[in-house]
Structure formats: C-alpha cells, structure tokens
C-alpha cells in the first residue's frame, strides 16, 4: 500500500465495520510512514474536537418557544382539516 492508497482508505479506518484485512494493511503502512501516521491521528482529533464541541446547542428557552410555536400552528391546521370537530 502506498500513501495515495492509504489516503483513499483513511475514512474507512474510522469505520468500525471495516474489514480486519484492510485495517491491518493501513496499520502496516502507518508503521513505516510518519506522514500518514500524523495525517490519520490529526484527522481523528479533528472529528473528536467537532463532536465534543457544544457550540451548536439550542438554548432551552428558544427550544420551548419553537416547540410552542410549531404546536400552535399544528393545532390550527388540524382545526381547519376537521371543521365539524
């Protein structure tokens, strides 16, 4: 396996479903290639940093507002559908 092939399969390395054979090929390449080793490790860190980031939380107060607004509109829609209810 060369660096290009390693890179093409980098994504699969993080996938738990990846076959053991491919995984060990990737590991064998990494053992002898520091560039690919660094690329893999820092890519893994990239994913983890974004996954742990709380930047994208929806504040509880806005959440409630949105939910109430949607429910009110849904109730109105429902009424329109069944005028005799």
């Amino acid at each position: 396996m060369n660096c290009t092939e390693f890179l093409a399969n980098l994504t699969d390395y993080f996938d738990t479903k990846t076959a053991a054979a491919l995984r060990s090929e990737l590991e064998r390449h990494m053992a002898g290639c520091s560039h690919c080793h660094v690329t893999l490790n820092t890519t893994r860190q990239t994913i983890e940093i974004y996954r742990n980031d709380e930047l994208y939380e929806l504040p509880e107060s806005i959440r409630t507002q949105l939910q109430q607004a949607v429910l009110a509109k849904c109730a109105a829609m429902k009424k329109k559908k069944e005028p005799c209810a």
Partner: protein
Amino acid sequence: MASSKNVRPPRTMATTLTPDENALHPDLLLIEKVKAGDLSAFEQLMRQYDRQIFRIALHITQNREDAEDIVQDTFLKVFQKLDQFQGNSKFYTWLVRIAVNESLMRLRKRRSQKTVSMDEEIQTEEGPIPRDFADWMPNPEQNYNQSELADILRRAIQGLPPGFRTVFALRDIDGLSTEETAQALGLSVPAVKSRLLRARLQLRERLSRYFRVPTGVQPQ
C-alpha cells in the same frame, strides 16, 4: 395514557436506536398517535429531535436565526406530510432529509446569485492532498479559551463547500451511518464517502494551522 413516558435517547443515538431494523421503532408508535390526532405525541417527537435538527441546520447554514426558522419549518412540514411517510424508512432519516432540503433552500436564498445544492461539484480534480504533516500538540483545544476555539472551529467549517459541510455534519457530528447519510441527502454511498474524506482532510488541514506543535518544540 402512555404519552407521559419520556423517551429521550442520548444525542448521538440515531444509529444505535434499533439494532434490529425490523423491530417496531418507538417513533412509529408516536407517528400512529399523531395520525390519530394526538398532538402531544407530536410534541414528544419534536422534543426528541429538535436539538439534532438545529445542529444540522446550523452546520449547513452557519446562521443561528436561519437554523431556528428551519427547526420550525421542518417540523411543520413533517406534520403536514406525515401521511406520506413510508414506515419502511427510518423516521429520523426522513426528518433529516426534510431539514437538509429546508437548509439548502435558505442558503440559496441568502446567496441568491449562487446556486447551492448537494450535487454541487467541487472543482478539485486531484484528490485531497495533505500538506501539513506536523503533529498536533496534546489537547490542542485547551490552548484556547472557549470563544477563541469556537471561532477557530467555525471559521474552518465555514470554508468548506456546503455539500462537504453537510456530509461531515451528518456523518461525524450527528453520528449517522454512511448509508443513512446517503439516504438523507439523496446521494450514493460512494459519493458520501468521497465527500466525507475530503471534508475531514480539509478541516484537518485548516485546524493544523492552530493546533500544530510549534516548530522547534519536540512533542512529548
């Protein structure tokens, strides 16, 4: 009534909820109730997924107000279209698909001169080639305060084309499987894989500028 039972899975549950695809998913029970006119069941569905929808919308649009509107519009659309939901696909995947479409529509409105779609091809012929091979410092996030870090992460992801950003958000942040991501975006599995790879490598390259071990310093 069982509707007071609060079923709220952890944030990245989407792929782990039902190992057995054929088992009756709790969402389907709620949907049946909504169809029978039970609005509290719809509220439960919303409580279960609104945070994730917000995150996805925010990742695609990079705009909080838009993302809040998208949460509303998505759930309204879901309520209106519930009859069209085919029980054979996962409700969450269907929901995400609607949210992604709403998000891309918003994005298009904001940049009216430029079309934005999932099919948007990015003009790099050669594959993604990493250029920065410096290792990162241990726990690089700790070298920045919260708002600095937020800024770095936001700036890096904003630089990605929307089609890449979306795949990265669904797959890596929201934890959807490759297949679910493909389904939600109407892309093939190989297309998702290639976008994911490029998105990850581009982000890595951008973050490297901030997180690399300074030259002349040996990593421990």
